[in-house]
């Protein structure tokens, strides 16, 4: 009887005062929807910037052979021949959080095609190189695993090299080039990337590392091993693990004597993490301000109805309804309003986020569960506290005081 009476009283009271209930719900809906939408847009922007940084290769660790020391005379980093294909396989197989490993054996050489020739960097490598260096194909395919296994005489041209040998914009796939008197089939052309540091990836020819070692350089060593960590946060661990592994493989006990060196793109990482940090602060402020604005809206709606409600509470007390029942009814009203408004707010916020994604294709918004929970939690808490607390206070007044409340 009591429960059904409270539920009936609540639903009647909310539906009898449609404007009041509607405005309260609107306040809650706007509060919650704005938090969800703003955070979704912010996180979308953050993800899009993070992926741009990702494509520059911020997760890249480069292993180079160390300086060869003989009797105190150093011949400079990269001059010794200490890294092998097996080192690369060991890194790939034994270390966690690695996305790709690409050993590289490169040398400059003269290249000829039908009637044209150029001098360019010949990069012997494996299929993972495309992953590590974010290489995108304009046509054809990159060097494949099978080509590496089979010592295949195939070549992928950088965009600039293609322009030099076959003319700008042509598609040389299927044609033949000659490197150091060995014929290679052209199987692909990369999309122009622009320069990166001292090497220009567009002015290069990529061939299987086995073919390079066999036909071009005659090396059994590799000049560098590029390692892509699976994400930026595991960079430090991956770098330490590579160092430990190679020291063990090369039987070196003193890290000072290492015959290799590790470098990463520290400045890019620093920039990336400072951008991420700024974004985190931005997002928190947006969420905080939206929550504050929404919360104050909800609070105002709840408090402005107090005068009328106080008289009603006085009347209810005067006709002999117990305080506990009055409290329960008002609590039920506040809960019903905030949950209904909260639900609508989540739906509206979600919809608005999707709409923004639709209208601005470059910005993929991301609705996060935590922002939904935060918005819903704070708004319902504010709604319930400010809906229930004044009613509770009014129920504690003497009936006459409550009835005369102005």
């Amino acid at each position, binding site marked *: *009887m*009591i429960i059904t009476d409270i539920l009936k009283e609540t639903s009647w009271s909310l539906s009898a005062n449609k404007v009041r209930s509607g405005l309260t719900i609107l306040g809650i809906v706007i509060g919650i929807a704005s938090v969800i939408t703003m955070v979704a847009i912010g996180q979308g922007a953050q993800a899009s910037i993070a992926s741009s940084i990702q494509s520059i290769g911020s997760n890249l660790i480069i292993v180079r052979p160390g300086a060869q020391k003989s009797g105190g005379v150093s011949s400079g980093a990269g001059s010794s021949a200490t890294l092998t294909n097996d080192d690369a396989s060991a890194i790939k197989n034994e270390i966690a959080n690695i996305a790709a490993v690409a050993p590289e054996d490169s040398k400059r050489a003269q290249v000829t095609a039908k009637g044209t020739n150029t001098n360019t960097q010949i990069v012997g490598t494996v299929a993972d190189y495309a992953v590590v260096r974010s290489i995108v194909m304009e046509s054809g395919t990159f060097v494949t695993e099978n080509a590496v296994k089979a010592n295949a005489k195939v070549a992928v041209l950088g965009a600039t090299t293609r322009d030099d040998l076959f003319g700008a914009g042509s598609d040389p796939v299927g044609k033949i080039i000659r490197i150091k008197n060995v014929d290679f089939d052209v199987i692909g052309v990369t999309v122009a990337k622009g320069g990166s540091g001292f090497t220009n990836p567009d002015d290069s020819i990529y061939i299987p590392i086995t073919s390079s070692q066999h036909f071009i350089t005659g090396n059994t060593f590799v000049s560098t091993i590029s390692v892509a960590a699976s994400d930026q946060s595991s960079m430090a661990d991956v770098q330490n693990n590579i160092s430990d592994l190679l020291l063990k493989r090369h039987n070196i006990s003193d890290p000072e004597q290492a015959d290799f060196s590790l470098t990463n793109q520290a400045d890019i990482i620093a920039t990336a993490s400072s951008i991420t940090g700024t974004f985190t602060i931005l997002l928190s402020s947006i969420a905080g301000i939206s929550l504050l604005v929404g919360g104050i809206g909800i609070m105002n709606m709840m408090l402005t109805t107090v005068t009328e409600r106080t008289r009603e509470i*006085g*009347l209810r007390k*005067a006709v*002999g*309804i*117990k*305080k506990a029942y009055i409290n329960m009814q008002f609590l039920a009203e506040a809960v019903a309003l905030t949950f209904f408004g909260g639900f609508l707010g989540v739906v509206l916020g979600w919809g608005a986020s999707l709409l923004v994604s639709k209208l601005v294709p470059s910005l993929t918004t991301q609705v996060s569960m935590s922002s939904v929970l935060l918005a819903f939690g704070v708004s319902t808490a504010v709604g319930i506290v400010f809906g229930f607390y004044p009613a509770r206070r009014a129920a504690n007044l003497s009936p006459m005081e409550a*009835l005369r409340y102005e």
Partner: protein
Amino acid sequence: MCAFVARYHTMIECKNLSKIYQSGDMQTVALNDVSFSIEKGEFVAIIGPSGSGKSTLMHILGALDSPTKGEYFLDGQEVSKLDDDELSQLRRDKIGFVFQAFNLLPRTTVLRNVMLPLLYSDTTDQQREDRAKACLAYAGMEESKFLNLSNQLSGGQMQRVAIARSLINNPAIILADEPTGNLDTKTSQVVMKAFQELNQKGHTIVLITHEQEIAAFAERVISIRDGIIESDIKNTKK
């Protein structure tokens, strides 16, 4: 359903009631050692100017406030010792209120307003509705208005609804606090006639007013001034 058998016994008994309001160092004596009793079936007007203590007395009689000193028995039950919830219970079961400002729930049907005191009581919806309809008819409300919203009624109609609400639990006394204060003279007469009719049907009515003409409708007038009873006169006209 709302009528009860007239049987003479003491309905209200006040013994040495005092009410002192304390604010800071200031003491205000609102009621000073007031004693009187009201029998079942009486129609009593308590009259006095503002500040006389009549409102304080009404609050105590209505179990809305408790006296600082003294004892108050309503229908044989000592009220001054009850706690908040027991007072609520007592108000629901024994007292029907009619207020100056009507105090109906806004935007709410007449029927629902009358049923309000039955909320959370052990009655079915059908019983509540039947009782409310009976009381409305008893208070002289046309049946066609039962489903009207309270704010669509005239002042006189509102007060009839309030009277019907006060009758719903078949109370021991009906306590009317300036029931005509918000009504014009003509409507006031009609409402006072309604109270007289209720009294003739056996209801005990206590009326609080500051107007002599309104008090004249009662059969006994207690006038109060400065917290003490100035006079207690049986109205000989009746």
